[in-house]
C-alpha cells in the first residue's frame, strides 16, 4: 500500500471516509435523493471535482483500476491532475481503457462503451439541485422534492417548446429516477441521458461545494423529462468522426482555421482510439 507520507491512504482520514460511506449507502437506498454530507476541504479547489474526488477516495481500494475523464477525454488537464492525485495518495492502478476500469470518475460525459455490472461511475457535480435556476432557495427546493412537486420544471420545458418549438435544454436535462425524484444528471449532454437508464453499473454523484451526494443504483429507471407530443431527443452533431468514422458517438467540433474550416471528432478519446486501432488491425 503506497501513498504520501504524513497523509492517510486515499488522503481522507478514516472518520471522514466512514461519514462518506454512510452517506453513500443512504444515497443508494434512496435513488436520486440528494443526501447532505460534511464535505471536507480537499487539496483541489471547490468546483474542480472535490465531490467526485471525495466519493472516489471513500470507495477506492488496492484492487481497483481507476480511469479519470474530463469532457470524455483522459488527457484534459484536470483529468490528468486528478488521476495523478490518486496515484500519489492511494498508489492505485490507473487506465485509459473504459473496459479495464473498475471506477471511472467523470466530468460532463458518460463513456460511449456500455458500462458493465460491477463498474462504478463517479460523476463530478457542480450544481446538484435540478431546480436551482428556477428556485435558488434550498429550503424551498427541499420542500418541493418532499412533495415531488416538479411543476416548475414542467412549465419551464413547456415554455421552451412555445418559444423555440422544441425543448431547449442541450445539457443537464433533468431526469426522473425510479419515478420519484427529479435529478440533475450533472451537466452531461442530453445525448448521454439515455445511457443512465437501467445502466448495469452503479452511478454515484458527488457535489463537494454544495455538500450533496446522490446515486442511481444499477438497473434503475432514469427517464428524461419530456412531453408526449414533444418527446425528449438526444442531440449530436450530424457528422461522422473525422478520426475513426463513428456515426453514433458524441462529437467535439474542432476549428481548423479561421475561415470556417472545422472537423468533428469523438469526445470519448478511448472509444475513438479503440476504433482506430481496430480499423488499422483490419487493414
Amino acid at each position, binding site marked *: 500500500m503506497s501513498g504520501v507520507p504524513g*497523509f492517510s491512504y486515499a488522503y481522507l482520514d478514516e472518520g471522514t471516509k466512514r461519514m462518506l460511506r454512510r452517506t453513500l449507502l443512504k444515497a443508494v437506498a434512496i435513488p436520486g435523493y440528494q443526501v447532505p454530507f*460534511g464535505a471536507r476541504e480537499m487539496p483541489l479547489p471547490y468546483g*474542480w471535482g472535490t465531490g467526485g474526488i471525495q466519493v472516489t477516495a471513500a470507495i477506492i481500494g488496492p484492487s481497483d483500476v481507476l480511469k479519470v475523464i474530463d469532457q470524455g477525454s483522459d488527457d484534459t*488537464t484536470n483529468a490528468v*491532475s486528478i488521476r495523478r492525485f490518486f496515484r500519489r495518495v492511494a498508489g492505485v492502478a490507473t487506465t485509459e481503457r473504459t473496459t479495464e476500469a473498475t471506477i471511472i470518475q467523470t466530468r460532463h460525459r458518460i463513456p460511449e462503451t456500455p458500462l458493465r455490472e460491477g463498474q462504478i461511475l463517479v460523476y463530478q457535480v457542480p450544481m446538484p439541485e435540478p431546480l436551482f435556476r428556477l428556485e435558488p432557495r434550498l429550503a424551498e427546493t427541499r420542500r418541493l422534492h418532499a412533495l415531488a412537486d416538479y411543476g416548475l420544471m414542467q412549465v419551464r420545458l413547456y415554455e421552451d417548446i412555445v418559444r423555440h418549438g422544441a425543448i431547449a435544454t442541450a445539457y443537464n436535462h433533468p431526469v426522473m429516477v425510479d419515478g420519484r425524484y427529479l435529478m440533475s444528471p450533472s451537466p452531461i*449532454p442530453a445525448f448521454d441521458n439515455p445511457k443512465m437508464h437501467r445502466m448495469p453499473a452503479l452511478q454515484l454523484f458527488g457535489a463537494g461545494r454544495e455538500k450533496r451526494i446522490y446515486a442511481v443504483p444499477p438497473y434503475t429507471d432514469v427517464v428524461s423529462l419530456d412531453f408526449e407530443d414533444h418527446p425528449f431527443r438526444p442531440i449530436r*452533431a450530424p457528422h461522422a468522426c473525422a478520426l475513426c468514422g463513428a456515426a453514433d458517438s458524441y462529437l467535439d467540433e474542432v476549428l481548423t482555421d479561421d475561415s470556417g474550416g472545422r472537423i468533428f471528432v469523438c469526445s470519448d478519446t478511448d472509444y475513438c482510439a479503440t476504433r482506430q486501432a481496430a480499423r488499422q488491425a483490419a487493414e
Partner: protein
Amino acid sequence: MYVAVKGGERAIANAHAWLEEARRGDPALPRIAPEQIAGQLTLAVDRVMAEGSCCDRELAAIAIAQARGDLIEAAFLLRAYRTTLPRFGYSRPLETAAMRLIRRVSATYKDLPGGQILGPTFDYTHRLLDLAAAAGDPPPAPRAPADPAAAPRVTELLAREGLMAREEASDAEPPDLTRQPLPIPAPRPARLQNLARGDEGFLLALGYSTQRGYGNSHPFVGELRIGWASVEVETPEFPFPVDIGEIPLAECQMVNQFHGSAGAPPQFTRGYGLSFGHGERRAMAMALVDRALRADEYGEERAAPAQQEEFVLLHSDNVEATGFVEHLKLPHYVDFQSELENLRAIRALKEAAE
C-alpha cells in the same frame, strides 16, 4: 492529419516549475522568511487565519508566502491543511469579557469602566504614503501602566438596565460547519461560524449596504475589543479547566435600535462579530450582517440582501466562491457543443417554419 490536443502531465509540470520561479522572484534579493510575514504583515496573517479558520500564525505565514501574497489562495491552503489535522478535543467557550486588551473602543459612551484604549490603530493616522519607511526602526512607543480595573462589556451594562435584549444562554452543542453541511434555516451559532470565516470583502459590502438603507439598521459600535483571550480545556486528568494559551481576537458588539413588537418592549438589540486575529473591520462588518440576519427573530420584514439568510450564508465563503468562479476556465466544450447543436437545430426549425 489532425491530432487531438493533449493536456499532458509534462505541460502541467512545466507550468508548475514556472510558478516556482515566479514565486521566488528576483534571486538577487533575499527570500522573505515566514517569520517576517508572521511578524510584520500581521493583519494579512490575521485575515488568512480567520478565513482559513485555523488560528496559527506560522502556518498562515507559510500559506501567504506559498500563495505569492494571494490571501484567498492562502486561506484555501490553510483550510486544506487544517482539514487533515486530528482533533484532540474542544475548548470551553472563550471568556471575551476577560480578554487581555490592547484596544477597546465604545462609540456609545464617552467614558466607561475600564476606559477607552486606542491601541495600535490606523485611526487618526494621516494616510500619507510613507516613502521613507525603510529608513530605520521606530523608537519604542510609550506605555501606560497596566490598568487593573476590569473592563466589563458595554452591552452587559445596558442589559442590566433592561434596555438591551438579553441573549439566551444555551448549553446546547453548536453545529460544527467544518464537519457538517450548513443547516438551513441556520441556527445562530451556525450563522456566526459561517460569518466568522466569511470573505472580508463580502461581509464589508453587505454590512455597508445595511447602513445605506438596505435593511433596517441603526447601528452604534457598542464596543470593539481587541486583544488576547485565554483558551481553556477540560481534561480527564485534572479536576479544573487547564489554560493552554492565548489567541488573538477582535470582538465587536453593534448596538441597534429596535422599536419593539407585540411581544417585546422597545429596546436595544445587538449584532455580534468575532474574528481570529485583530481584524477589526471584519468583526464590525460581521456584527452588522449578524444583526441584519436576526430580522425574523425581531419580527422585521426580510427585504434587503443582507437579511436573506440563504443568500448571505451560501455566498460568504471565498474558498467555495473562488473555486466555482475559477472552474469556469476548465474545459466546457462538451456542453458548449451541445448548445451549439441545439442552437443550430432551433434556428433550422425556425427557418423551416418561415
